[in-house]
C-alpha cells in the first residue's frame, strides 16, 4: 500500500539508451569490435596527419633503386639479408611508394565507400519500407519490385554496370570522383532490399498500435506521424542493418577492385592493393596480406558491432 500513498518514484526513470548501453557493454565481442573499428577509422583518417609521406610520391633516379622493394622491418628478424629501412616500417612497393601511407590512403577510400554506400542503401531501403508499410496502395507494387531486385544476379550486374558507366561518369567527375560515385551508387541500389523488407514489416505492426491511433486522433498529419512516431520506433532494425551494410559494402568494393573493375590502378584502395600484390606473391607476400588483414579486421569488427547492437536493441533480450 505504500506505493499508492507515495506515487513519486524513488529515482528518475532510466533513459532507454542507458539500458541499451548496459546490454551492449556486457557483449564483450561487440565492445572489442567497436573499439577496433574506431581505432581503424582514427588511424586511417588521423594517421596521414602524423605519417606525412605522400602515398603517390615516386622517388626518382638513384633513390628509386635504393627505396624500391623494401620489406617490412620484421622480416629483418629472421632474414638478415632482407632489404629493410626504418624510414619505411612496412616496406615499399616496386615503384618505391611507402606501404604504410598507401594502406592509410586506401583505407580512407574503402571506409568512405562503405559508409556512403551504406547511407544510400539505408535511405532507399527505409524509404521503400516506410512507403510500402504505410500506404496500402503502394505495398503490392513496391514489394514486387523488392522481390525482383532480390532475384537479379547482383555481382554480375554490378560488374557489367561498372564497366558501362565508367566512361561517362569519369568524364563528368574526373577518374577518381566518377569511380567513387559509380561504386557507391551501384552498391547502394543493389543492397537496399533486406532493409526495406524489415522496415515494412515493423511499420505494418506499428501502424495498428494505439499510440499511432492517438497521434492520428489529435490531428497529426501523415508526414509528422511518420517522422515523429513511426521512424524513431524502427530505428533499431535500421541501425543493425546499417552496420551489416558497411561490412557488405566494404567487401563488395574490395571485390570489384580485386577483379579490376574498381578504382584506377594508381589510386590505392585495400582491394586494389591486394590485387596488385598477387603478381609477386612469392617474393613479397606482405603486399597482399597487409591490405587483406585490414579488410578482414574491419569487416570482422563491424560484424561484431552489429551482433552486439542487435542484442542490445532487442528489448526481449535486454532484461536478462
Amino acid at each position, binding site marked *: 500500500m505504500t506505493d499508492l500513498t507515495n506515487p513519486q518514484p524513488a529515482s528518475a526513470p532510466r533513459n532507454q539508451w542507458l539500458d541499451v548501453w548496459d546490454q551492449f557493454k556486457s557483449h564483450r*565481442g561487440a565492445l572489442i569490435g567497436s573499439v577496433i573499428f574506431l581505432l581503424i577509422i582514427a588511424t586511417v583518417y588521423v594517421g596521414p596527419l602524423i605519417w606525412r609521406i605522400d602515398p603517390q610520391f615516386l622517388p626518382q633516379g638513384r633513390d628509386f633503386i635504393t627505396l624500391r622493394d623494401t620489406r617490412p622491418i620484421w622480416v629483418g628478424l629472421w632474414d638478415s639479408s632482407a632489404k629493410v629501412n626504418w624510414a619505411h616500417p612496412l616496406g615499399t612497393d616496386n615503384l618505391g611508394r611507402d606501404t604504410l601511407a598507401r594502406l592509410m590512403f586506401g583505407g580512407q577510400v574503402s571506409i568512405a565507400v562503405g559508409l556512403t554506400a551504406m547511407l544510400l542503401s539505408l535511405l532507399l531501403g527505409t524509404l521503400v519500407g516506410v512507403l510500402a508499410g504505410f500506404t496500402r496502395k503502394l505495398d503490392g507494387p513496391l514489394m514486387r519490385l523488392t*522481390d*525482383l531486385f*532480390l*532475384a*537479379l*544476379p*547482383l*555481382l*554480375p*550486374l554490378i*560488374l*557489367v*554496370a561498372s*564497366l*558501362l*558507366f565508367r*566512361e561517362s561518369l569519369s568524364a563528368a567527375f574526373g577518374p577518381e570522383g566518377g569511380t567513387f560515385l559509380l561504386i557507391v551508387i551501384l552498391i547502394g541500389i543493389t543492397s537496399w532490399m533486406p532493409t526495406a523488407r524489415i522496415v515494412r514489416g515493423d511499420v505494418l505492426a506499428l501502424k495498428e498500435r494505439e499510440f499511432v491511433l492517438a497521434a492520428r486522433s489529435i490531428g497529426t498529419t501523415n508526414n509528422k506521424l511518420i517522422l515523429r512516431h513511426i521512424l524513431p520506433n524502427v530505428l533499431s532494425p535500421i541501425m543493425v542493418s546499417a552496420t551489416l551494410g558497411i*561490412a557488405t559494402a566494404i*567487401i563488395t568494393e*574490395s*571485390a570489384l577492385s*580485386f*577483379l*579490376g*573493375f574498381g578504382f584506377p590502378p594508381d589510386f590505392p584502395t585495400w*582491394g586494389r592493393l*591486394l*590485387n596488385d*600484390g*598477387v603478381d609477386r*606473391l*612469392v617474393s613479397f*607476400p606482405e603486399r*597482399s*596480406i597487409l591490405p*587483406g*588483414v585490414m*579488410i*578482414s579486421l574491419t*569487416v*570482422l569488427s563491424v*560484424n*561484431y558491432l552489429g*551482433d552486439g547492437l542487435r542484442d542490445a536493441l532487442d528489448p526481449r533480450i535486454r532484461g536478462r
Partner: protein
Amino acid sequence: MLTFTIRRLVLAVPTLLFISLVIFLLLELAPGDPMAQVPLTVPPEVKEKMREALGLGQPMHVRFWKWLVQFFWIEPQVLVDHYFGTTFSEGDLRVISWQTRSPVMDIVIQRLPQTLWVVGTAYVVGILIALPIGIYSAYRQYSWFDQAGTFISMVGFSVPPFFSGVLVIVIFSVNLGWFPSIYDTTLVVDDWESFRRQLLQMVMPVTVLALQITAQISRFMRASMLDNLNQDYVRTARAKGLGERTVVMVHVLRNSMIPVVTVIALGVPSIFGGAIITEQVFKVNGIGQLLIGAIQANDLPMVQTLTFIFAVLIVLFNLVADVLYGLLDPRIRYD
C-alpha cells in the same frame, strides 16, 4: 501443394522475362563495338554487312525478341538434337559469341563442369561440416565449443574469398608446397596418379568456398536447434523416457532441419556468384572466369546469356526453397 507449385512456376515466367529485359536494356547502353577489332583496311560497307550478320542494326525490340527465341526455343532444340540425333534446329541462328564467333551455349557447356565440380564439392563439404557444428554448439550453448564456433563462423563471414584464397596460396602453395596454386582444367582423370593430382588441386578452392558456406549454415543450424530445444514436445519426449540421443538427433533435429534445408536451397545461386571471385583467384577455367573475360572483351551476347543463367538459377532455387518448405512442414500449406 501442386496448384501452389504450378502457380509459382507460372509467376516465375514474368519475373524471368522482366529480368531478361533489364539485362538486355542495360547492355544496350554498352559503348563497345564488336567491329572494333576488325582491321582498318576492311571497307565500311563490308563492316556494315558483318554487323548485320551478327544481328545488329535492327530495332531494339526485334533484337530482344530474337534473343528470346534463340534462348528459349532454338537452344533447347539444339540440346534435343544433340541427345537424340534429330535435326530440329538445322539452319536456325543460335546465340553467337562476338569473341569466338561460335555458339555461346557450346562454350558455357564446356566450362560448366569445372565450376560444378569445384562449387558442388565445396557446397557438400561445407554442409557436412556445418551441420554437426551447429547441432553440437546449440546443444552445449555457451560452452567453449560454442564460443569457438561463433568466432570461427564470424571470421568465415568476414574474410572475403579473395583474401582467404590468397592466404592459403601463400601458406600451402608457396611456403609448404603441398598443393598447386593454379587449377589445371586440362587434367584428364584416368588413373590413380591423375586422380590424386585432381584431388590435390581441388583442395584449396574447395576449402576457401566451404569456409564461407560452413560459417553461414552452422549459424542457421544453431539458431534453429536453439528454437526447438526449449519446446514442449522436447520435454514430453524426455519425460516419456527416450534416450538423450533419440531426443536430440531424431525429434529436435528433424524439426530444426526445416528452415535449414530452405536456407541451403536459397544459398545455391549465391554460391555460384561467389565462385566468380574464387575462380579468379585459383584460375579455375569455369563460368565465372568466362563472365569476367566476356565483360572485359565486350562480348555482349555471352554476358547477356551468362547473367541470365545466373538469374534463372536464383529464381529456380527460390521456387525450390518455397516448395520444400511446404513439403517438409505440414503446418505451412500454401492453399
